[in-house]
């Protein structure tokens, strides 16, 4: 990707977190974290285990309420952000340990992602008439586009509990995409995958970003993936921000190298 191309893809600030402090009892999970995510970019959050990466995502979509600081999304301050608000305003996410609805089929899982876009009344649903029927069909069409996009046509009617791990990850991505989010949070989308699955998933992430213009924030441990995909990277360690910048800047930062490789004291 050329430099000019990158610049035209990325717009102004979409989300920022400002001076976030989060602690659980005496344990400080995050200390004075600030960074922003621009429209259209792929932003990575990296750091050693226990650095507070997942906590950061949980703060962004309102699972954790920070003691200090606020989240600003699309020019609006949220103190605190709530999961329902996040969903409504256009933030979707996937989980590190897959959080699919195990008893439902792939199709139903993805259809659930359209929940907020359906408005039929109880009576219409009970009788399957009017808006209920129309919405089911309209959204089915949209969901089929996503199914095509992620190449999961063959498992449409399979209960997700029966699917292998890699496919479950893909269905979870599909469900998040069905929400048509502006900001997509991916918590370790490639954890536990083999090389081919990782390549597939990387391809999907790039495609989502380019075709739908979705802004993506991802946590990932595979440095190769992070350095290749990301526009900018923020590095956390022990709940503090170590570095923030382009992949090149970050990978040459001495603090980051120390945190990852260890340093003699």
């Amino acid at each position: 990707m050329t430099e000019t191309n990158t610049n035209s893809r990325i717009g102004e600030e979409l989300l920022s977190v400002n001076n976030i402090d989060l602690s659980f009892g005496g344990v400080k999970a995050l200390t004075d974290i600030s960074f922003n995510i621009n429209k259209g970019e792929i932003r990575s959050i990296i750091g050693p285990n226990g650095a507070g990466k997942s906590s950061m995502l949980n703060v962004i979509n309102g699972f954790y309420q920070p003691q200090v600081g606020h989240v600003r999304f699309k020019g609006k301050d949220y103190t605190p952000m709530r999961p329902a608000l996040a969903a409504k305003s256009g933030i979707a996410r996937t989980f590190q340990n897959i959080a699919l609805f195990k008893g439902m089929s792939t199709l139903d899982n993805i259809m659930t992602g359209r929940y907020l876009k359906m408005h039929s009344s109880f009576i219409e649903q009970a009788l399957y008439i009017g808006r209920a029927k129309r919405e089911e069909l309209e959204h089915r069409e949209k969901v089929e586009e996503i199914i095509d996009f992620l190449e999961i046509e063959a498992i449409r009617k399979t209960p997700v509990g029966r699917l292998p791990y890699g496919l479950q990850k893909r269905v979870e991505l599909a469900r998040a995409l069905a929400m048509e989010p502006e900001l997509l949070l991916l918590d370790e989308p490639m954890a536990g995958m083999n090389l081919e699955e990782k390549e597939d998933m990387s391809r999907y992430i790039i495609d989502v970003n380019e075709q739908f213009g979705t802004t993506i924030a991802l946590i990932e441990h595979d440095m190769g993936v992070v350095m290749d995909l990301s526009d900018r990277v923020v590095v956390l360690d022990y709940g503090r921000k170590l570095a923030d910048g382009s992949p090149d800047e970050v990978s040459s930062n001495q603090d980051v190298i120390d945190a990852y490789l260890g340093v003699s004291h």
Partner: protein
Amino acid sequence: MFYREAGDFKTSYAADQSILSIKLDRYFVIGLIAFGVIVVPMIGNDYWLGSLLIPVLVLSIAALGLNILTGYAGQLSLGTGAFMATGAYMAYKVATNLAFLGAPVAIIIGGLSAAFAGVLFGLPSLRIKGFYLAVTTLAAQFFLLWLFTHVDWFVNYSISGVPSIPPMEFFGVLISGAEATTEARYLFVLGFAIILGLAARNLARCKMGRGWMAIRDMDIAAEIIGIDPLKAKLSAFAISSFYCGVAGALWAFCFINTVEPGAYDINRSFQILFMVIIGGLGSILGSFLGAAFIVLLPIFLNNAPQWIGLNLTSDVISHMEIMIFGALIVFFLIVEPHGLARLWQIAKEKLRRWPFPY
């Protein structure tokens, strides 16, 4: 084979999303309903209709209700009997004091009252889960029944405390009271069962049903998607209790002809719970299969020794009935913990490639 789905292609999403997307399934269910409406009342006698089919259908409706709550929304409830009682007593009040409204309206008002009670006792579900929630619904069971036994207003100050249901007509045909024919009562109950069964199936496949299942399977992820746990859980409690209330009212109006607390005690709650577990959690078909299994099997066991020429004393038979019944429940749960509905599904899958083993 008589049952084929090969070559049954769909060319639109509408066809793919219809309730019975396989052609033969559709014909079979329509045929079954036609059989139930037209043929059964002609060939059935009072015993078959009045003592077997009516209770099976009424309890199926209650099982549907509990299945919505426990099977779809994942909220364990032991208060089914109480919600049925609420429906029965309120329908009785309407039938006696506002008789001009007619039986269906009385029964539906009974259902709505039960829905209200359900929402009230469902409120703790927002904070507590699983067994603990079951205990709070147990409180509903004891409190509501206590209310109906001790507050005379509910039974119109009747001295016995067990008042009879007044005779009521539906399109000029008596459907309650001692004079109502078994056929009329059966058809009235069947109508409710078909409509409520269809409505439950529709709700389960639409937005609301997906919301329930999402809360059941992974409440955190459901919240992230924008499903409000409060709305999803309380709507499940309301609709579930509505079904139970209607079933309770039908039980009183079309089966036992009285309203009495004994018909809705804790045993009833457990009976319905067993139906749902044996029939299949999260399955509409399972609710009907479970009700039929639990009601009909003891009767079958009771009669079977005579049919094969065994002369046993009645107390031996009744003891054996309980033992065999219990053993069968354990057997079914070991063979297929997902119930009869799942067993039926597996049978279909096996038959599809029969006689090949793969």
